[in-house]
């Protein structure tokens, strides 16, 4: 069953993208174009690794519950802090969003690689590289009956709780955005902050809240990558360009988290499809890795040409809002 294996790998590739894009969609809906998402995902991953590493090193015996909870909480705390830095600079200090986001990515990727490379040395431990197989094992606990369900089990039931959480969070976000008052207010802030402000919505508070929530969700993508996909082994730059791919997925999903659930699987598939094409040499593989980006550009062009109102970016995306300057 090659295609079942392919689909399973595609979903695994897609989960970090789904987390990243759900987080970025929430952020962009508030009008903040957070280009720091790649950095935030690194920080989310490495914070979890730091937590798990310290716990594995210091605990007498490793219990499943804290082994999962500690990295999870560390990851959330790390990415929340990144979201706060971004919100403080862009909302409170009114700094340029693109510059802040790129600085955040530089910082975050550097932070991840630095601790990935030096954590063992800093903690005074003698292990050569960080390999958290025990913690990773707990993270990758599968549903007990996955093996018995044939290809369906392999494709859909063999994943870990973080993968299902990604889908649930995306679906929940889609519901909140389009069916609740909070979602309506959030969209109003992203479309036209001046109007939202006049209607009594606290623009700053929504931007802060959306950006921080988005960061935390995106950071979980980093955690999933190290703990599940990479089996608890942190390798520097291993996460690669997935953060940018997550931003591409936002466009592909036309700012709707429910579409990005399927989009993430498609992108994940495009990301690894070169492994499944027979007779492809290494250089050809590199061309195939272009696919997700090429598809995104094509879509970006199409949606801007068709000018369909539901498929446009939030009108004030990337623009600052200062009450006294409107």
């Amino acid at each position, binding site marked *: 069953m090659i295609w079942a294996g392919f689909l399973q790998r595609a979903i695994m590739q897609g989960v970090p993208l789904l987390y990243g894009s759900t987080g970025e969609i929430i952020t962009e809906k508030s009008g903040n*174009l957070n*280009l720091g998402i790649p950095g935030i995902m690194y920080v989310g991953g490495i914070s979890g690794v730091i937590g798990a590493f310290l716990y594995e090193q210091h605990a007498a015996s490793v219990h499943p519950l804290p082994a999962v909870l500690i990295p999870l909480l560390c990851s959330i705390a790390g990415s929340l802090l990144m979201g706060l*830095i971004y919100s403080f*600079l862009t909302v409170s*200090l*009114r*700094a*340029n969003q*693109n*510059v*802040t986001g*790129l*600085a*955040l*990515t*530089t*910082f*975050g*990727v*550097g*932070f*991840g*690689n*630095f*601790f*990935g*490379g*030096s954590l063992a*040395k*800093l903690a005074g431990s003698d292990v050569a590289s960080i390999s958290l197989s025990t913690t990773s094992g707990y993270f990758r606990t599968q549903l007990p009956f996955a093996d018995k369900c044939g290809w369906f089990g392999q494709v859909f039931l063999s994943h870990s709780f973080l993968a299902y959480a990604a889908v649930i969070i995306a679906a929940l976000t889609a519901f909140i955005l389009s069916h609740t008052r909070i979602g309506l207010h959030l969209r109003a802030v992203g479309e036209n902050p001046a109007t939202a402000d006049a209607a009594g919505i606290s623009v700053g508070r929504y931007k802060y809240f959306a950006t921080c929530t988005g960061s935390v969700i995106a950071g979980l993508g980093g955690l999933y990558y190290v703990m599940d996909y990479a089996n608890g082994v942190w390798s*520097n730059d291993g996460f690669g*360009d997935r953060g*940018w791919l997550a*931003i*591409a997925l936002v*466009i592909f999903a036309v700012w709707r988290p429910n579409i990005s659930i399927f989009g993430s699987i498609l992108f994940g598939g495009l990301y690894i499809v070169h492994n499944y094409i027979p007779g492809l*040499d*290494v*250089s*050809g593989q*590199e*061309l195939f*890795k*272009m696919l997700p*980006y*090429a598809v*995104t*550009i094509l879509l*970006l*062009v199409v949606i*801007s*040409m068709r000018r369909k109102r539901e498929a446009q*970016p939030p009108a004030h*995306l*990337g623009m600052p809002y200062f009450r*006294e*300057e409107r």
Partner: protein
Amino acid sequence: MAQQTHKTKEPLFHIAKRDAIVWWKAWGIRIAAILLALVVSGLVSFLLTGENPLRIYVTMLDGAFGTKRRIWGMLQNLAMLLCVSVAVTPAFKMRFWNIGAEGQVLVGGLASAACMILLGDKLPNALLLLVILAASVLAGALWALIPAVFRAKWMTNETLFTLMMNYIAIQLVSFFVYKWSVPKGSGQVGVINRATHAGWMPVIGKYDYLLNILIVAAITLFMYIYLKYSKHGYEIAVVGESENTARYIGIPVKKVIIRTMLISGAICGLAGMLLVSGTDHTISRDTAAGRGFTAIMVSWMAKFNPVFMVLTAFLIAFLEKGATEVSTAFGLNESFSDIITGIIIFFIIGCEFFIQYTVKFREKEAAK
């Protein structure tokens, strides 16, 4: 406002825009921010290494200025970063967020490498260099032209478009790197034309990087004059302030967008040539080394002024060299420099707020 019938709670402080700020005050705030950032990064370094922060700063200075070689190395990094920063500046002044400099530099470098490999033994060197120049400039310009046309005609979001173009360029380079790799399948191109030096930019005297630095200096000066004194520069500024105003006074907005992006991309392509034909004599997907992204911060920190950009590019180049030295000296991972750079940029970004606005605290008798 002071005479209110029922008491409303006045916030602890409010923010007001400054009319104008004397230049020394503005620079004072900036320098204070940099000093504060250095203190914070010293603290971070201390927490990570347990070394005396002063020793860390000394090591940083040594890494950037310790030997003649290091100074030249830093100047070269400074020049390359400055070149890309100057390239993205006209687009930013027009409020066109060209995040695709990384890709534009890479395709420029790719074009240079292609000419060096394919035409290396077929043309005399002077002619070859001209062909390389033309090819890399055209490649960079083309890479910028595509998003510019879509932005001008259909308002396609340029930030996202140029961002995606980077990765198309990176994969394209990867593709050719494997095609050309020496030995076959190694995934590395190696030094191109090592024996013949065909397509290598000439060296002035004994100074490997001097020609690069001079070229970048000339481009910087050109860009300063172009933006400040030419009609094009004025049009760019107006389009950046308000596209509607520009249209109203008869500036062809679409033409300005496309023309400006062509220039921006062309200089990026040239930067690619300086990197491939003038410095590395090889190509890889890391040839641009993130400069396309760093340049955005450098340009913004200099308020889009090419002359100030020398200072901000120097700051970043110094930090990178210095922090790299710190990481080797104290046995840390080389990404240490990214953390320090990030912290300093956060402070500089943040301090602009205090230059543009004042924070007024609540007074005793609530009078606004």
